[in-house]
């Protein structure tokens, strides 16, 4: 698995090139990472978390336990003169008993719907997730259908590539087959998504809404950032209103 350039190296070099381009004043605005919420969907045990761990940390763990403790993972990805920061949400197992909350795909700009190329039933499940996204999620969401476990293709393939490809084309999805285990095609999934996201539109709408603003206090449009901390608590009542 050491033969091909790893996802992490690729990501690291992207980050470096981004930093080195920092002197270009004209590009300065674009170098602020554009945050993109990406959600993972798919049947349990198709390798959703493994794909992301490969993309984010360039790791693979055999028999990985279901994900615990992380709100989401982040990874940057550079595209032309822009940097995209993926905020990647895992299902945290809530898909197992059909209990995924609508909040999960709220405002997601991208979704990776994963199936297992050795399990035809997992493609059916993936199709129902795509339907759910088309019904509930942001109408401009970019959806990628990914057949995982490509490393098992020679011995255990159960879903013909053509069949999945034809469905993806018909439904207007990006499509690829990949292997979280070997790293094959994993990076490509995320760069292809980045190319398809209407970044300029995203930037423009954030500018208006003030949604990308951070720091304490109220941002434009009345939004507030609670991550800045619960300041002012237990203080003496300041600034009496009357």
């Amino acid at each position: 698995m050491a033969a091909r350039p790893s996802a992490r190296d690729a990501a690291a070099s992207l980050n470096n090139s981004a930093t080195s381009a920092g002197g270009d004043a004209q590009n300065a605005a674009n170098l602020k990472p554009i945050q993109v919420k990406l959600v993972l969907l798919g049947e349990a045990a198709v390798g959703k978390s493994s794909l992301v761990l490969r993309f984010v940390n360039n790791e693979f763990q055999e028999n990985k336990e279901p994900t615990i403790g992380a709100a989401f993972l982040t990874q940057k990805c550079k595209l032309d003169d822009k940097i995209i920061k993926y905020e990647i949400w895992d299902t945290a197992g809530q898909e197992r008993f059909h209990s995924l909350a609508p909040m999960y795909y709220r405002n997601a700009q991208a979704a990776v719907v994963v199936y297992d190329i050795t399990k035809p039933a997992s493609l059916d499940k993936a199709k129902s997730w795509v339907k759910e996204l088309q019904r509930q999620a942001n109408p401009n969401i970019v959806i990628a259908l990914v057949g995982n476990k490509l490393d098992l293709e020679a011995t255990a393939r159960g879903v013909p590539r053509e069949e999945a490809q034809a469905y993806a084309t018909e439904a207007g999805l990006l499509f690829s087959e990949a292997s979280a285990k070997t790293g094959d095609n994993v990076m490509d999934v995320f760069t292809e998504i980045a190319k398809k996201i209407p970044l300029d539109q995203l930037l423009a709408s954030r500018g208006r809404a003030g949604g990308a603003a951070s720091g304490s206090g109220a941002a434009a449009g009345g939004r507030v950032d609670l991550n800045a901390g619960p300041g002012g608590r237990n203080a003496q009542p300041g600034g009496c209103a009357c």
Partner: protein
Amino acid sequence: MDESYDVIVLGTGLTECILSGLLSVEGKKVLHMDRNDYYGGESASLNLTQLYRKFRPDQQPPSQFGRDRDWNVDLIPKFAMASGEFTNILYHTDVTRYLEFRQIAGSYVYRDGRISKVPSNQTEAVSSPLMGIFEKRRAKKFFEFVQGYDFNNPATHQGLDLNTVPMTEVYKKFGLEPGTQDFVGHALALHLDDSYMTQPAKETYERICLYMNSMARYGKSPYIYPLYGLGELPQGFARLSAIYGGTYMLNKKVDELVYEDGKIVGVKSEGEVAKTKAVIGDPSYFPDKVKKTGQVVRAICILNHPIPNTADADSIQIVIPQKQVNRGHDIYIAAVSYAHNVAAKDYWTAIVSTIVETSDPEKELQPAMALLGPIAEKFISVSDLYEPVADGRADGVYITKSYDATSHFETTCQDVKDVYKRVTGNDLKVEGKVKKQEEGGAGAE
């Protein structure tokens, strides 16, 4: 589900989801079930189809209201106080990562037949029509007293020990008019009735501080509200629970609670029994273990305009103090709009609510409804309020309370703390509860 759990939680309302999240973070093995196929129970926000299914099962939503998905209509109106305990819990559990909040644009109070903004700064206070010039001076002295009060320094007490003196004494000392007392007790301290007057002033003092601190935090009003509606809140805490290993099952009927020697040992659903040491749930799952404590009437109103006389605010709270309309309990109006992603473009939803005092609850809301201007559609409900008859220590069944008529989540937090203590034996400390994710960090492992 044929497994053993430390706790099984029934119902995915906000109180239950916060508890589920906190217990999962501590390493408890939690199974969380709901009979509905959606999250939130009473604290859900509904789209148009769900709203009509609930209130007008024989009707389709009219097309003028636009797309179903644009609507997230709360059933129980509440806002978060910016410096309150609920915001504190959100912050320390990192659930703020999943939600976006927006300020409520204004807080108003009704007096002598009209509404006025609760001043949010000195300039507004000086020009406020709520008090005459002499009363403003008296009020200023009162607020200086509140601001300077220090329980450990008798020199700041001006002869009033707030631990013991009733609020009536404090009002008397500063010579505040009845209208100003209404303003302080109801618009700032957010008491629902006047029983606080004869109680020690400390609680009212603390409530005024909470209001002031919350107001000072972001300006405009002391309240914040999650985009897409209050239904996002239980979902956020459910996700917290899930990422710490909690198991979620929606659309899961509870057939039976299984006891051995009077102690809960399991929950039976669809023929299977999940074993457990404790059960937490909302009152609807335990009809024989709760008692009714009152009723709240709520009118969900859809408007295609801002509420009149509010400077076209995109969101607002209006408090109508009980005495102003000859009642025993305040009436509240809580309005939010498309600016919070809870309604289609150019629509507002206003929920009018109060504690029921007569046999014609809808009529009790009339003074508030009259402030709203033309109402495009309204949905009226009367809900019973329940609380458990026992504390749960004897049988291992810990029941939460119904959501009350207060306009914020502070009493919900109190219930969370009470149940948490009964279940675990410890006081809840939220500080340092989770390892907070660094801005921009990967956060895993």
